[in-house]
């Protein structure tokens, strides 16, 4: 399959044919030998994937041809091949953006071969990155990733729009599980900074003594154990968005340092001297009321005003019950897709049960409830008995999905549930779980699990 077009621009027929023959050994390459700069420019409409040019062409030199090619097709890679060994010429052309500069000698063909392989690998990586970025953008298109039609959520969408269209800092508040990070990502991936990094840091998850080095980075030898320079999260977010989750947990000392970074738009790594310029949008989130924290003296007032920017308050799920069934459908559809199983429906009685609950864990909790219900359901319909809420049940969703259990404990829990579902039919359960029946009998005999 010919899928990579190479132009060899070379007026020395002997050398040109040599390169042509050599490169044509790869069946994927469609190689064209061109004898002059003018002819090359006239052929550019054929959209080559790579052009190699001889520096000393009779009608124009390599530099002139390079400029003209780039004017017409800025993205086409160009490799200069020349008998000219002057370092300055090579450096100048590489500075201008030439892909490579090869000197004509006995190794040129091999070097060119390798350069093309390297180039194609880089192009493939670049394509992959572009594709992933496009996917990310789609993923965080909030009209599809944040589900709901309630007026409360529509108001949030409007604020996300406002935030994405400006450079303002954003503060997101809401109970746990309301989707604060999803909103932060929606702001980033719908803004002009979407092509730059999105860096999320959960302040509650970093030990107090490590926060400073994590955020600011450090130079080699800054402290015992600092064996190499480390870039901090502020720097990683340069050009993009820094999301500081649970900012209410930030230590007062770090708060003052963060304030300084936001004011000066620069930082000095721990143990360093040089100032590093910063340019990022700050998005913060907290489940706490920061204004109250300011009053209590737990949060600096000056920092509060600096970060509050555009406040987005996310409503708890209990205040947007209109969205509950939409969200249920969304999670179920995702679950079925991920597990490659047919569509699961929710019976009318189950809908009533789902709507009757308060969801203190909000959307995160609803997701867990739905996923567990999907696991427990039979005949592709979720019945009320399949739904287990957090409160008043030792074997609830949280226990199953979020509590740290040993593999053995999980095994026990799953087998017990299956035995219950299939009326203690050990053979059927063994078949369903694809395990040996003796495993289940042994667990029943030893009392590790009990029958229904």
């Amino acid at each position, binding site marked *: 399959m010919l899928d990579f077009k190479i132009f060899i621009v070379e007026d020395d027929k002997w*050398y040109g044919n040599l390169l042509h*023959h050599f490169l044509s050994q790869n069946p994927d390459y469609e190689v064209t030998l061109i004898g002059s700069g003018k002819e090359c420019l006239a052929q550019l409409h054929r959209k080559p994937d790579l052009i190699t040019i001889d520096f000393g062409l009779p009608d124009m030199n390599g530099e002139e041809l390079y400029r003209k090619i780039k004017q017409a097709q800025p993205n086409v890679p160009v490799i200069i091949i020349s*008998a000219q060994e002057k370092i300055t010429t090579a450096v100048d052309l590489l500075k201008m953006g030439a892909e490579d500069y090869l000197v004509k000698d006995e190794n040129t063909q091999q070097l060119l071969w390798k350069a093309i392989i390297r180039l194609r690998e880089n192009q493939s990586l670049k394509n992959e990155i572009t594709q992933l970025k496009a996917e990310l953008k789609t993923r965080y298109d909030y009209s599809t990733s944040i589900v709901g039609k309630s007026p409360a959520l529509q108001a949030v969408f409007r604020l996300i729009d406002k935030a994405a269209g400006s450079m303002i800092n954003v503060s997101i508040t809401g109970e746990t599980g309301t989707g604060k990070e999803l909103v932060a990502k929606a702001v980033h991936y719908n803004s002009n900074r979407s092509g730059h990094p999105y860096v999320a840091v959960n302040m509650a998850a970093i030990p107090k003594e490590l926060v400073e080095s994590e955020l600011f980075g450090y130079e080699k030898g800054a402290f015992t154990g600092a064996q190499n320079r480390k870039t901090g999260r502020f720097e990683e977010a340069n050009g993009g968005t820094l999301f500081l989750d649970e900012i209410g947990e930030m230590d007062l000392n770090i708060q003052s340092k963060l304030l300084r970074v936001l004011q000066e738009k620069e930082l000095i790594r721990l143990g360093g001297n040089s100032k590093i310029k910063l340019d990022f949008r700050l998005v913060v989130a907290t489940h706490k009321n920061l204004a109250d924290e300011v009053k209590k003296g737990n949060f600096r007032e000056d920092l509060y005003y600096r970060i509050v920017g555009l406040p987005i308050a996310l409503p708890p799920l209990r205040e947007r019950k209109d969205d509950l069934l939409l969200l249920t459908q969304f999670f179920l559809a995702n679950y079925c897709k991920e597990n490659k199983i047919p569509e699961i429906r929710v019976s009318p009685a189950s809908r009533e049960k789902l709507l009757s609950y308060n969801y203190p864990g909000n959307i995160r909790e609803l997701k867990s409830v739905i996923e567990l219900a999907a696991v427990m359901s039979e005949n592709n319909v979720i019945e009320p008995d399949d739904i287990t809420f957090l409160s008043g049940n030792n074997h609830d969703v949280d226990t199953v999905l979020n509590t740290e259990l040993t593999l053995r404990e999980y095994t026990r829990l799953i087998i017990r549930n299956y035995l219950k579902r299939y009326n203690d039919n050990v053979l059927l359960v063994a078949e369903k779980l694809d395990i040996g029946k003796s495993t289940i009998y042994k667990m029943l005999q030893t009392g590790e699990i009990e029958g229904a």
Partner: protein
Amino acid sequence: MRADHALYSYNYLYKISDNPAFIHKMISLFINSVTEYAGDLQQLQETKVLHDLKRTIHKLKPSVLSMEVTGAREIILMLEEKSVWDEDLEKLVEQLKGIFQQIKPMMEADLTELKI
């Protein structure tokens, strides 16, 4: 046909491919090139424009070196270093021209030997 000759070598070509059609084509192209270069050098001996001589040397260098033409490498390197057109340079150009004229019929004989 032998790859090694007293005054030149096809080893480089054979390293790239032992396809006789390729070898034949490359030898033919080389014969054409040296004929052309010998003519260019002859003309340059009359005009004595050093810049044009350097351009010609630059152009012929890769193929002549790759074919390991005996004595040509040294002459080319010395000519590259020259900054004035003097008697010494004139002698070097004459020598290079002579080498080209000498190897041309030998290579043409090789071509008749080479079966494609």
